[in-house]
């Protein structure tokens, strides 16, 4: 009977797949060597990208990966003995998936360094192993303050200032430029969102602003009406949100729908065109978004502008949040490798002893624990559905 036959086939297929699964995929890529027509030997060196390429908030990871890509293509175009390549490890930014991925890139000898991990949570998950393997990492975006202290290591580096610096920048700007009497502060209960929020609450409270209106929202839910009502009832001058762009935009929209007209300010997690989409363009108008990073646009003079043009050529998009930082991180590593540091230990030593490096996002100097010496915090505003730069918090606060 055909039914029996079909069932048998399905059973056999399933069994075969299982067997294949059990036997397969054990080969590891080691560095491939190929000869060029010119007779010289070229080696391929891999840089690992670790972070979200899919899933919610994937944009932040994609931006960094694309920044790396620009750096790698530029390096390859310059020629030389070494071909650079990126190996991607998609964690979806999830600390639960991060360990699974690390067991792939740590044993892979062709990978000399990691650009990433992207999010603080996943960094926390894999840092001990990275340290054990002496695999140097330069994160373009993991901003949690406690990372280097909770897990002391040699390999941890980041090219953006931590959330303590960002919180200070926000507090500076808010107290000196915007001067609200009362501010509502809401977070999304994530490692990053709540971390930034705690910093801001403390600093603004110390400065004498009324920070008593506080709430948390569930990022998985769509309905923030309780928080919205709380904010509305408190009649505040400003609203601060700690979290990522989707929820930030939605929250902003619901505030606007409820008739709350207070100024809205949020951190780097919200700095993404997704914020505008989520807030339903008119709803997001006037929102302020900060970042310890600088969005590269073609009209900026000098290196950032060139980068933006190059990026648009190669990636066919405008650079996003942390694209510049990803570019810088990759370039530090590329430079070190080109100078002969072609093993993990040597590359780690190079990065540790970096001194000063002129990146397009900032001048990079690492502190002993891997933090970058404090950089500027930038403020952006949503105007006409677009994110436009206002300037550095230090300059805006003073002016």
């Amino acid at each position, binding site marked *: 009977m055909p039914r029996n036959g079909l069932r048998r086939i399905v059973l056999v297929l399933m069994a075969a797949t299982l067997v294949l699964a059990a036997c397969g995929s054990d080969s590891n890529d080691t560095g491939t060597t190929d000869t060029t027509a010119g007779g010289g030997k070229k080696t391929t060196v891999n840089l690992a990208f670790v972070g979200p390429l899919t899933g919610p908030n994937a944009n932040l990871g994609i931006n960094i990966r694309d920044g790396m890509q620009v750096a790698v293509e530029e390096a390859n175009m310059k020629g030389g003995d070494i071909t650079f390549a990126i190996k991607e490890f998609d964690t979806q930014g999830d600390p639960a998936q991060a360990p699974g991925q690390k067991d792939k890139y740590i044993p892979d000898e062709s990978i000399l360094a990691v650009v990433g991990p992207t999010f603080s949570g996943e960094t926390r998950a894999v840092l001990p192993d990275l340290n054990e393997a002496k695999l140097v990492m330069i994160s373009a975006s993991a901003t949690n303050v406690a990372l280097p202290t909770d897990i002391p290591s040699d390999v941890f580096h980041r090219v953006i200032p931590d959330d303590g610096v960002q919180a200070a920048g926000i507090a500076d700007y808010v107290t000196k430029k915007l001067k609200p009497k009362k501010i509502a502060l809401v977070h999304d209960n994530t490692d990053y969102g709540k971390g930034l929020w705690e910093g801001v609450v403390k600093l603004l409270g110390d400065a004498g602003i009324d920070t008593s209106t506080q709430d948390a929202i*569930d990022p998985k*839910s*769509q309905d923030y009406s309780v928080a919205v009502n*709380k904010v509305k009832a408190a009649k505040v001058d400003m609203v601060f949100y700690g979290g990522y762009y*989707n929820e930030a935009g*939605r929250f902003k929209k619901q505030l606007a729908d409820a008739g709350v007209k207070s100024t809205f300010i949020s951190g780097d997690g919200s700095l993404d065109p997704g914020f505008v*989409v*989520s807030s*339903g363009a008119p709803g997001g108008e006037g929102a302020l978004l900060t970042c310890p990073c600088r969005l590269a646009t073609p009209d900026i003079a000098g290196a950032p502008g060139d980068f933006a043009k190059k990026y648009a050529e190669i990636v066919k998009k405008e650079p996003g949040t942390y694209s510049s930082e990803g570019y810088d991180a990759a370039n530090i590593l590329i430079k070190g490798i080109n100078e002969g540091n072609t093993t993990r230990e040597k590359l780690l030593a190079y990065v540790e002893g970096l001194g000063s490096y002129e990146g397009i996002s900032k001048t990079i100097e690492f502190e002993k624990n891997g933090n970058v010496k404090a950089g500027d915090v930038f403020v952006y505003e949503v105007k006409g559905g677009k994110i436009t730069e206002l300037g550095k918090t230090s300059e805006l606060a003073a002016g």
Partner: protein
Amino acid sequence: MTAGAIYALIALGYTLVYGVLRLINFAHSEIFMIGIFASLFAIDGLGIDVTDSPKTGLTLALTLGAVMVVAMLTSGFLAVAIERIAYRPLRRRGAPRLAALITAIGVSLFLQELFAARYGREFLGFPRVLEKRKLFTFQGADVRSDKVLVIVAAVVLALALERFVARSRLGRGIRATAQDAETAALMGVNIDRVVMLTFFLGGVLAGAAGTLYGVFFESARYDIGFLPGIKAFTAAVLGGIGNIRGALLGGILLGLLEKWGATVLGGEWTDVFAFTVLVVVLMFRPTGLLGESLGRSRA
């Protein structure tokens, strides 16, 4: 309250299917999600985009009506399709209920990922069709036009469903099958057709819920159905699963409870509060607040 009304509509679908088949239809949350997408596409199809201003009066009614009908039909037929493809073979075989549950979960995941692949994993925004005007204030809370629409629509649809199930011939068939399928079959009730109808009705309501959701929250994404689905199922159990009025009551009650819990305990404890209430209710009334009663007629 508004969220509660939406939960209630979705809960009706769960409760109908459970009452007749004793199956927790996990895929129902995706039927809801597809209702939202269908609404978005319908709005798009009508030529409305983000730059258009909101509609009013007759245009508004017609637009919303058309969109809702499209969503309802899409979800309704999709639900029937799922039943034919995934659940009926199991029913034929007398498979254990757990197998049907796993199938439901598989369908749910499949549909989510299908939409994720096709439409991406970012949120899609709705154009504003209904202007969100504050109508008046009631005990400190704003009564807004969109909130009123959602609540009124939900109640009307729920009562219409109840009327249909209680009075019509097909409705009787549903109730008979819920009580005793074998006897109903002996009495000439076409069980397969009853099951299809049940799924269709549940899907229709989920589609309507989708339109209302889209109008209210103005966003869509592949996984947007998951959380409301769980909440709606909780609401159905709270009110008494298999009980139509119970689903309505459970939905509204759950919405209010969540609100209250979030206000008093803080937003992060909402779900804990809601589930704890559920456990406590079930401890004292094991079949939910209004009991299981799809089979019993209203006195």
